[in-house]
């Protein structure tokens, strides 16, 4: 086994030997099931005599689009935890005794984050489809699960969930304090970014900037979101959105390598 694969195996065993990772994955599936069903109802059910807000494929795409729009906190948090639990429980000492090359440790964490993020994406899709599709087909115009646009949206949703997890690991390397990192993530994703996107979108010339915010970049990959439909913003092309997310992940990881992963471990 090479040093890198050994480090990756160690990271995998560390993550899967405590309960948190599957608790979070279950939480993500359940949360998306709830939001998916609620969304499907609200889009397809209308008061007597009025047309439902959305119908057909549009309704289906909007429901499946919440995978990224509301689900991204979970992969972000699990990505951060790969670093922050080690700092919190002081297991970083043992980790660095086993692999003193800190770049190898960080690299293994990023690769694991990508894999676990994709897994979370699948968990999210399962929850979303399990609860959203029956509602869409029973109350609305159909689940459209075989539609190529729907399949594409779901697959890209899984991909973007993987990217969020990688970004989370980079963030954890910059903010290794577990509570601070989770609070910062919640504050940024639930508050700062949505407000920034609306505000920037309202100002002429600045809406270009808002497309480069991480949430907007992720929306660009998937192609839809609640917030991007509310504000009148232009999204980047899907490939550029993915690159922007990777860029954030790379910049954060680099910063983390120079701070948390360069410091004395005492």
């Amino acid at each position, binding site marked *: *086994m090479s*040093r890198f*694969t*050994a*480090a990756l*195996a*160690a990271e995998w*065993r*560390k993550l899967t*030997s*405590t*309960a*948190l990772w599957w608790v979070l994955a279950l939480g993500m599936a359940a949360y998306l099931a709830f939001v998916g069903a609620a969304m499907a109802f609200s889009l397809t059910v209308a008061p007597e005599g009025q047309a439902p807000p959305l119908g057909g494929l549009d309704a289906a795409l909007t429901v499946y689009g919440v995978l990224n729009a509301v689900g991204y906190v979970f992969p972000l948090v699990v990505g951060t935890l790969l670093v922050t*639990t080690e700092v919190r*429980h*002081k*297991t970083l*000492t*043992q*980790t*660095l*005794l*086993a*692999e*003193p*090359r800190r770049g190898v440790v960080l690299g293994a964490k990023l690769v694991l984050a990508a894999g676990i993020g994709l897994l979370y994406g699948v968990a999210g899709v399962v929850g979303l489809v399990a609860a959203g599709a029956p509602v869409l087909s029973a109350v609305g115009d159909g689940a459209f699960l075989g539609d190529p646009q729907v399949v594409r949206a779901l697959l890209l949703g899984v991909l973007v969930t993987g990217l969020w997890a990688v970004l989370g690991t980079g963030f954890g390397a910059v903010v290794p304090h577990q509570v601070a990192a989770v609070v910062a993530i919640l504050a940024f994703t639930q508050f700062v970014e949505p407000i920034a996107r609306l505000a920037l979108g309202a100002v002429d010339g600045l809406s270009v900037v808002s497309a480069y915010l991480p949430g907007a970049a992720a929306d660009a990959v998937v192609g839809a979101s609640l917030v991007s439909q509310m504000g009148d913003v232009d999204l980047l092309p899907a490939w550029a959105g993915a690159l922007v997310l990777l860029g954030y992940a790379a910049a954060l990881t680099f910063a983390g390598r120079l701070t948390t992963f360069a410091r*004395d*471990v*005492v």
Partner: protein
Amino acid sequence: MEAPALEVVGLGKSFGSVRAVDDLSFRVEPGRVTGFLGPNGSGKTTTLRMLLGLVRPSDGRALVGGHAYAEHPVPGALVGAALEATGFHPGRTGAAHLAAYAPQVGVGRERCREVLEQVGLTAAADRKVGGYSLGMRQHLGLATALLADPPALVLDEPANGLDPEGIVWLRGFLRHLAAQGRTVLVSSHVLGEVQHTVDDVVVIARGSLVHASSLSELAATAGARTYVETPTPERLAELCAERGWTCAPTGAGHEVPDVPAAEVGAAAYAAGLELHQLATRGADLEDVFLRLTGAAA
């Protein structure tokens, strides 16, 4: 694998304005147990962390077998280490903790069970570490250090939190490992704790070396004392005052430091002093240790 010597050369470390380790040099040989001694805050843990690549030295070098720890192809298999304040995830079982580090030192789960048995944790192997006692954690740390069956061991205060039975077991175990030719470095802030275990001692105080030798050489620097019991202690006190000896009450008798038993006996005989006991007492290493580490203050 050949056991590596451990060596620090002109090692120094500052944490801001705190000089934790200063111009420290010593060498730890294979096949012997070396005690790394110093009072609280004297820089033991910091030195060991520098040796293991966790803390970057401000000055000097710390080497394992002539190279920096991180430069070895599989460092975790060369040096097994258990450091103070190394954490365990409370939600992980003891067995899972070991299994997590097994791939990087190239061993399987079988070996994890083996070391757990060696340290007496078999029954607790599948319990979460959050429920372990202090001594059990100490044992798990030791098991982690032993995982790769390494030719060198670095243990930071391994006796902390162990019961007397555990301490006796640890003593024998460390002696056994050294007898196999391994390099064994154990730190402690109490000389008495390792006195029966170590061959060599390295004593530091305030980050600097104050003594490095074999244990027997250290013992030789402590003068022997003579223990005397007499029914007339006031006459013994007079005699000591006459001769310029110090005479300290201890237990049922008195101790006369730095004067051979023969000399005390002869003086008592000449003075007609009745003695019930006259014995040479070994050097009190703990006194020597206090004197050495206090001198740097």
